[in-house]
């Protein structure tokens, strides 16, 4: 254990820089960009809601926490309750059996709140869209501010999308100045 910790002290971190986003998402309005950062500072508390995904999106959202993407370095963290959340990150084609739970989670999130729909299913263009058991896009149930596509979206896509909400990669990489 001690040997391991010592080794980690002297080896370089595997955390990687994040590139500026390409054209992987759709947004409700350009005005949103940076608005969250202005309102909340450099901190973003996310409540993830699986509204019936195949769990592929969850695997990649999980990966955001690993040492390569290390989402917490940007002040982004996943919280256990919608009561603590600024953003709901919703995946899946919103199954009818999950609809009420999603609506109630949204209602339990304090304003101001934003919703990110992650993955093709949440965007409404996934393979389950036509089912009797699915509502379809997340935007059919609650208002959506940002859509990150992909089946599943890669951690890089997800990270770029979340950083976009905070005003961009450059903004988020900004180091706090010493007083």
């Amino acid at each position, binding site marked *: 254990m001690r040997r*391991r910790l010592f080794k980690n002290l002297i080896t370089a971190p595997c955390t990687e820089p994040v590139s500026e986003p390409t054209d992987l998402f759709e947004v409700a309005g350009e005005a949103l960009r940076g608005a969250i950062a202005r309102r909340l500072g450099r901190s973003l508390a996310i409540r993830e809601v*699986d509204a019936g*995904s195949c*769990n*592929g999106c969850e695997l990649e959202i999980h990966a955001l926490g*690993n040492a390569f993407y290390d989402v917490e370095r940007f002040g982004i963290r996943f919280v256990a309750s919608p009561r603590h959340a600024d953003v709901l990150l919703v995946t899946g084609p919103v199954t009818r059996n999950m609809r009420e739970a999603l609506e109630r989670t949204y209602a339990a999130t304090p304003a101001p709140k934003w919703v990110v729909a992650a993955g093709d299913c949440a965007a409404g263009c996934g393979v389950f869209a036509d*089912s009797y058991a699915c509502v379809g896009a997340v935007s059919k149930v609650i208002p959506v501010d940002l859509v990150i596509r992909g*089946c*599943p979206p890669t951690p890089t896509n997800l990270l770029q999308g979340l950083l976009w909400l905070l005003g961009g990669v450059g903004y988020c990489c900004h180091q706090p100045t010493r007083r």
Partner: protein
Amino acid sequence: MLKALFAASSPDRAHHGWPRVAVDLDVWRAIGEALREGKLDLLGLWGDVGAVQCVLYEPATRQIMSASLDARAGRVPSLALFHAPASRLERSAGDLFGIEFVGLPDPRPWLDHGRWPLHHPLAESPRPGAALPPYPFLGADGPSLHQIPVGPVHAGIIEPGHFRFTASGETVVRLEERLGYTHKGIEKLLCGKSIDAAARLAARVSGDSTVAYSWVFARAVEAALEFDPPPRALWLRAVMAELERIANHLGDVGAICNDAAFSIMHAECGILREQTLRACATAFGHRLMMDCVVPGGVAADLELPGVEAILSLTSRLRRQFPELVELYENTASLQDRTVGTGVVSSALAAEFAAPGYVGRASGRAFDARVCVPYPPYDAMPVEIAVRSEGDVDARVWVRIREIEHSIGWLERSLAALPSGPVHLGVRAVPTTSVEGAALVEGFRGDVLAYVRLGAGRRIERCHLRDPSWLLWPLLEAAIEGNIVADFPLCNKSFNCSYSGHDL
């Protein structure tokens, strides 16, 4: 036993993969008796229009057979009356097809929460849906008992499901699961689809097992059409399946330790898992290898950079993983949480035909790659890791051994990869309905597929059975007598799929 049961009738000639026999009510009941006596394992049970079908495995002879029973009258005798593992399978078949299972001890709906526009959506003529009365949870009476409802939205980044704990102080007296929240109606979506469109759906039944699902679906289709994919494709499928196993087991080992508040393992395993996914992306073009296995072969060949990426991954794992195993083994505070926690008895594991690491950690030495071998595992066998303790620790050790076995298998297979094409068009067009069934060992356990193809090679009926069907009920048993705070640990050590179960 199987042979004697089905001696009276001959197998259906349209069914491939293993025999399927149409049976009468007497044989159906005799199957129930054999299941009760533990002579047979129930691998799956599902409904069809006017029929029910079950898949049986005989451990003594390692034989698999399907039995189908006419259900046009709308009523069939319940197997759950004899054999508890059939219960949720029959409740689901009832929800989807409107078949009544006479004598079913638990007649509550399972997948149907009263939210669909249709009742019995897969029946020949579905009825309009209507709200159902509130779901009655099982009772637990006694002084000082309290209930803790959890979910469907959980605290972590996991799938939705509801858990109803009844606890006495800290100790769990009863856990009851309420699933079905991620029911997407996949079986109905599959009906009428082309083989290619259906393959994309099958790949998304449970994202963590996408390779296993694509493979089992492809095998069932290929069995139905009596088509042999090219040898190189078979080997590449197995390479993908072993990479998927390594990635998921790494994630699980880290997450189990994390739930015991030992986060360094989570961080270290997370790095290795990420490197595994990146090797997959280099080798096959997708981090989770979604849609990489297709009926007829695989979507793309493995080129030299991919081989190098996989070999560099295996050598990295060989260097770094043993250190983590040592860390797990030598950390007393961690062992204190995992050893003796969440025990599944070997009797229960045998009764439920517990798939995968849960079964193998409780002494059930079943692995589809070994017990019902399919190419390429028939030519290059894998080792099977079995423990008898049945606790969280045993399930971690089975995973650790499987990671090691998979690393070795990958290295040997890459040296033995046959050359040739990786995909051949499946040209056969059946004139009548043809059926195929297959079993593939995913990381979580054996995944079962049944496919019936009709005119124009459209899917008439397809059923995909996730190993989680047989694992979820065991979690209820494993947690009994443990403290509530150990539930995340037990749950993670099972890592059942919600999406694969709910379909």
